[in-house]
Every structure is written in structure tokens, then in C-alpha cells.
């Protein structure tokens, strides 16, 4: 045992000499850089470098993949994406599919994030109560989160297609079947519904953790004061749950802006462009069209990154304001 301890100590002390040597030479805060260097290297390689490459692609044109073979076009790709007579009407834009993607994404974010926050909160409040089968329901609400987005989309496609499970049920009940994925409004509705169904469990879990972190004494004190339930929620639960709500809001927002996989498998962005979101536009332009316009796709992804950056900064600002 003593030998082992000594060996362990010897191994642990190995870096002492080089560290002392480094300390002697690197003064002030410079030694800190040595410690963060591995992390910085990983960040530079997998985050910073791709951003730089994306900028290179966004400022070059043509259909070549290698940057050295691509002609420099400056801000042409951005100008082309942003060129519209009326930005509210995609059909007046040079890149109308990009703007269809923008407006569809915006509409999706408003409905999906708002409804998901509401349903997650409601579910968390119910699951936080002492109801029968609470563990079972918690597991059930979380279960869809474990499924792959492609599996989720395929399951729902089987349900919603013209001769799917839902229409079979309708026909059995003597109700005229509806072609859910052929009508633009229904296709959009189901896109929102399915994404809420698939992701709600995760956000419910965060809110549930937030609810359980509220000290029980506060609830007890309110109960002793006979505080009405609505007032209890408004004055106690909601303010104390706010940090968790903010996290759910921002995570949900970012996920909604990036929405692609489920909807692409479910509708392919159709009918027409009714469920084509911005990430699908980027994918199609860069990787699925016969002539791949990597520059346009990169410029669109930089614009998307800008939006996500603003959202993240707003979250940070909100958190700082909350923390005083």
C-alpha cells in the first residue's frame, strides 16, 4: 500500500518541476493561457475555423467546393439574398425561397415556442402535484425526447398521410378523410404540433426541476395565509420559476430557428414551400440542388448565425438584469 501511495505521489508530482519552470518564466496572467490552451485549440479547430471557412464561402461564388477554386464576389451573396422590392412579400425578392424560409421560420417560432412554453409549464405544474401515477406520466411525457427526429417524423407521416392511421379512423367513423399534408395550413399546423409533442418532455423536465427548487416553506407560508391559487402562482411560483422559464424560452427559440430534420422528413418543406424553413433552404442550396451554390448557402447560414447570436445576447442580458 505504501509503495502504491509513493508511486501515486511520484506520478502526481511529475509536472511540478516543469510547472515551476514555467511559472518562473511566464509572469502575470500568462500562465493562465497555458492552462486554457488545450480548450482554446479545440474551440479554434471546431468552432472558430468553421466560422472563418463559412465567411470564405459566403464571400466567394461559383459551384466549386475547394475555396482556392472559388472566385471572390465580396458581399454579392448577401446582397442577392437581401434584395427585395417588398420584404414582406417573398415573391418580390430575388431569392424568394430564402424569404419563404425566413417568414415560415418566424411564424413557426412564434407558434411553436409560445405554445410549447405554455404546454410545458402546464404539464410541469400538473406533474409537480401529488397525482396518482406521477412517475409514469413523467416518463411518458419525456419518452418522445428519446426518439430520433427521423423516427418521430416517420411515425407521424404514417399517421397523417392520405391513407394513414388518422384518416382510417375518420373513415371508420364515417367522417370524410382530410389530406393533412396536402393542405398548406394543415401541414404547418402538424409541423408545429409534432415538434411540440417531440420536444415538450425535455422542457417540462427543466421547468419541473425549477418548480421543485422553490423552497416548500414559501408554499406553506402562502397556504397558511390562504393565498388564492392564481395569486399564489402569479406572485410566488412564476417569479421564482423565471430563471428556468428563461432557459426554456431561449433553448426552445434556438431549437425552433434551427428546425429541419423532423419537418424535412415529414413534409419535405411542402406543400409548395409552406413548411420550408431557413435551414432547409441552406441545405437545399448548398447540398441538394444540381448546381450547388455553396456561397449563397454560407451567406444564409451566416445571417441565421447572426439572428441566433442576437437571441443569445438577449438571453445573457436578461439573465444579468435578473441577477442584478
Amino acid at each position: 500500500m505504501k509503495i502504491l501511495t509513493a508511486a501515486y505521489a511520484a506520478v502526481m508530482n511529475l509536472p511540478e518541476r516543469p510547472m515551476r519552470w514555467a511559472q518562473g518564466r511566464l509572469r502575470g496572467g500568462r500562465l493562465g493561457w497555458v492552462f486554457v490552451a488545450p480548450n482554446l485549440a479545440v474551440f479554434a479547430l471546431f468552432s472558430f475555423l468553421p466560422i472563418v471557412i463559412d465567411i470564405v464561402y459566403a464571400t466567394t461564388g461559383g459551384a466549386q467546393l475547394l475555396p482556392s477554386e472559388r472566385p471572390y464576389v465580396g458581399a454579392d451573396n448577401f446582397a442577392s439574398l437581401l434584395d427585395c422590392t417588398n420584404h414582406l412579400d417573398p415573391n418580390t425578392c430575388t431569392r424568394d425561397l430564402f424569404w419563404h424560409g425566413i417568414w415560415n421560420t418566424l411564424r413557426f417560432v412564434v407558434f411553436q415556442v409560445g405554445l410549447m412554453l405554455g404546454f410545458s409549464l402546464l404539464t410541469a405544474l400538473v406533474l409537480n402535484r401529488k397525482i396518482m401515477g406521477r412517475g409514469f406520466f413523467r416518463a411518458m411525457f419525456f419518452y418522445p425526447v428519446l426518439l430520433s427526429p427521423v423516427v418521430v417524423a416517420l411515425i407521424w407521416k404514417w399517421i397523417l398521410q392520405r391513407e394513414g392511421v388518422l384518416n382510417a379512423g375518420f373513415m371508420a367513423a364515417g367522417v370524410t378523410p382530410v389530406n393533412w399534408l396536402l393542405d398548406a395550413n394543415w401541414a404547418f399546423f402538424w409541423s408545429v404540433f409534432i415538434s411540440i409533442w417531440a420536444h415538450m418532455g425535455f422542457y417540462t423536465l427543466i421547468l419541473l426541476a425549477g418548480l421543485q427548487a422553490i423552497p416548500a416553506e414559501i408554499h406553506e407560508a402562502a397556504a397558511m395565509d390562504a393565498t388564492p391559487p392564481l395569486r399564489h402562482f402569479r406572485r410566488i411560483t412564476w417569479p421564482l420559476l423565471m430563471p428556468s422559464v428563461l432557459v426554456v424560452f431561449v433553448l426552445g427559440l434556438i431549437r425552433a430557428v434551427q428546425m429541419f430534420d423532423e419537418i424535412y422528413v415529414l413534409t419535405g418543406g411542402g406543400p409548395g414551400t409552406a413548411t420550408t424553413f431557413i435551414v432547409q433552404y441552406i441545405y437545399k442550396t448548398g447540398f441538394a440542388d444540381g448546381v450547388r451554390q455553396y456561397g449563397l448557402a454560407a451567406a444564409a447560414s451566416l445571417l441565421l448565425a447572426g439572428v441566433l447570436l442576437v437571441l443569445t445576447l438577449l438571453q445573457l442580458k436578461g439573465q444579468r438584469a435578473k441577477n442584478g
Partner: protein
Amino acid sequence: MSRVHLLAGLALLATASASASVANAGEIRIACYSDGNECPATMDLAKRFMAANPDVKVTIDEMPYKSILESLPVQLAAGQGPDAARVTLFGTVMQYMIDLTPYVKNPAYWEASFGAVLPWTRPPGVTTGIYGLPTQFTVTSPIVNKTLFDQAGVKLPADGASWDEWAAAVDKVAKATKTPYGMAFDRSGHRFAAAAISMGAKYFAADGTPAVIDDGFKAMASRFVKWNADNTVEKDVWASTGGGYRDAFEEFANAKIVMYHSGSWQLNRLQKQIGDAFEWQVVGNPCDKVCSGMPGGAAFVAFKGSKNPKDVARFFDFLADKPVYAEWMGMTNNIPAQAELQKGGVSYKLSPAATAALAAFGANAAKVSPTGYKLSGYAQNSAIYNPTVDRLSQVIAGQMTLDQAYARITQDVADSVAAAKK
């Protein structure tokens, strides 16, 4: 002692790298997709080739068609591609393809055998060279559910009937037999082009540049949109699916449509999946200005990045050899691209219905218009096909008018062609 160990280690490393390089010599990897059984059939022939040529190892990786379309060009650009691949839209990988003329045994045989389709694989402006081994010749054709016609008591329109006559007939059959739709088109610009060309679409200006929108194109586009609106054509295929290609074979196999506008590459599925469940029949392409379908086909093409182009050429020479090629076509039930075999000599294992279908496909192949060949051989034809599908789908979904779609198609094609030229 340590020096001895070091030397021994270096010797081992050198042996290992030498054996690795020996293993790499003569090893070729081919990416393949199947319409029916093309990859397994090629694998069978590859085994025979390897038995006769033990110094070459052929590995065939079967993958989905979508991977060939979307992943292969990126792999090739990154220098990580296979030695060869089965490709149908040559423009997507043309810049990486290699001319095998210096490596094949008898270039004159290749020219004489595949001269009609080799130009499709050549880069723009290049008039000679062997860039690929055509694995089949395809032609678009309508396939009808004859049983439904019989049940409805409606006669099949005679050879030379127009698209309008066919639309009226299938509509009558669909109504009489309570079939949901009269016809379906694969969601493909290539399939639409076949119908548009029969309406007189030219697709190119006199100087050879794309000029997609003309009276012929408009005639078919307006009919197609109308047929989608009145349920003559199954709307789901084009309108309810965004994204890319979708075929309507399952609908046809399940007797949900009377007439299916697809092509000869479906023969294996027709024979296997439908068999004699109902009577199906390939008919002549409808005629308006011309009675043309669209030609097409896939080819195994070799890439510049290959370290063993000689071995790729040896394998291609083996497959291109007339008896082997005939056997290959018989195994895959494809129309041969080899000139002599097009006249006969392939022994197919087909049912009577499939034999008749093959003959009908062959007859349709003989009527393909020059515009069809020109469009099939145009390197950037996907820059024409994709906007056609995207924009007409938007019209069918009620998001834009036909006139707006025409303007967008023109712009999209011009943008893509300009991007490809940079």
C-alpha cells in the same frame, strides 16, 4: 540493445507499409446504386472478374441514390471519393471524371458499341473520350393498369393519341372504377420534360443555351397544373412533398392510379411487385407535336482521384465485352446501351407481360426526339429539372401563378448555369 530494438521496429514498420501499399495496388472501390438489382448483379460479375484477375480486388459499395446525388460530389471534391461510381446525372460529378481512353483495351470497340450515349458523359465542349461505361439505356413511358380499363369498358387510346385524349380516357376509367386518380407523374423534371417535349418544348435556343420556357413547355405546364387541380393527376406526388424526387410506383402497384408516367427502369419492380396481381401494360408515349419520351441512363464512371485507373479500365473492359454485357443486361432486365445488343441478343428472364413491356419500351426508345437526347446530354440538366419541379409544385400548391413560375424557372436556370460556369 535499445538500438537493436529501434532498428527492428523500423524494419517492421517498413514491412508493414510495404505490404499496405501492395494491398492497395489493384484495389478498386466502386460506389453503386440500384434501380432494381444492378449492384448485386455487378457484384456477381465482379467475382468472376476477380477469379480471372487475382491481382485486382473490386469492392462494390451499394448506397441509396440520394447519397450518389448529394454525398458523392462532396467526397470527390474532398479527394476522398471512390475509384468509380454508378451515376445518372453526370453534370454533378463531371469535373472529377477521367477519360479512360488511354487505359481501355480497344477504344474503337467502345466508340462503336456505346457511341450514341458516350457524349452524355463527356464534359461540355469535349467531343471524344471514354468517360464511362453505360449500364443501361432508359426511356420514359406511360404504364397503364389494363385491368381497370377493362373493368370500365374503356378502350385503350390508339397509338398516336394525344395527352388530352389519354387524360380524358384515364379520367373516364378512374370515375367508372372509383379509382382515386387517373394518372401520376414521378416528381421529376425529367419526367415532366418528356411530356413537354411531346408538346413541342425545345428547351434550348438556337445557340445551344438553355431556353426552357416556350409554347411547348407552357402547353404541358398549364395542362399539368389543371390536371392536378381537377384530380386527373394525383396531387400528392408533386404538391404534398417538398424537397426532391419522389416516384409514384407504390400508388400504381396498389391500383390507386390508372396510368403511371415513369420509365423502363421500373421493369424489375413491375414484374416483381405487381406480377400478375393485375394486367399492366406499357403503351406508346402520347403524341402532340411529337411522340417522344425522354431518354436517359446510368453509367459507371471513373474518377481522376483513382490510384488505379488501369484496373478500373480492366474491369470496365470486362463488363463492356459483348457476351458479358449481354449477360449483365439479362440479369438486370435493362435495355442495353450497346449498339449491337439493342438489335437483339440479350436473353431476359421475364414474364410474358414484362417481355411485352420491354418491347414497348424499345419501341418508345426508337421514337425519342433529338431534343430529348440534347437535354439528357446537357451537363447542367439538373439546373433545368429542379426549378421545373420546385416552381410547378408551388403553382399546384397555389403559391404562385403559372406566369410567375415561368419567370422564376428562367431566372433559376440562369443563376444555376452562371454559378456552374464560375
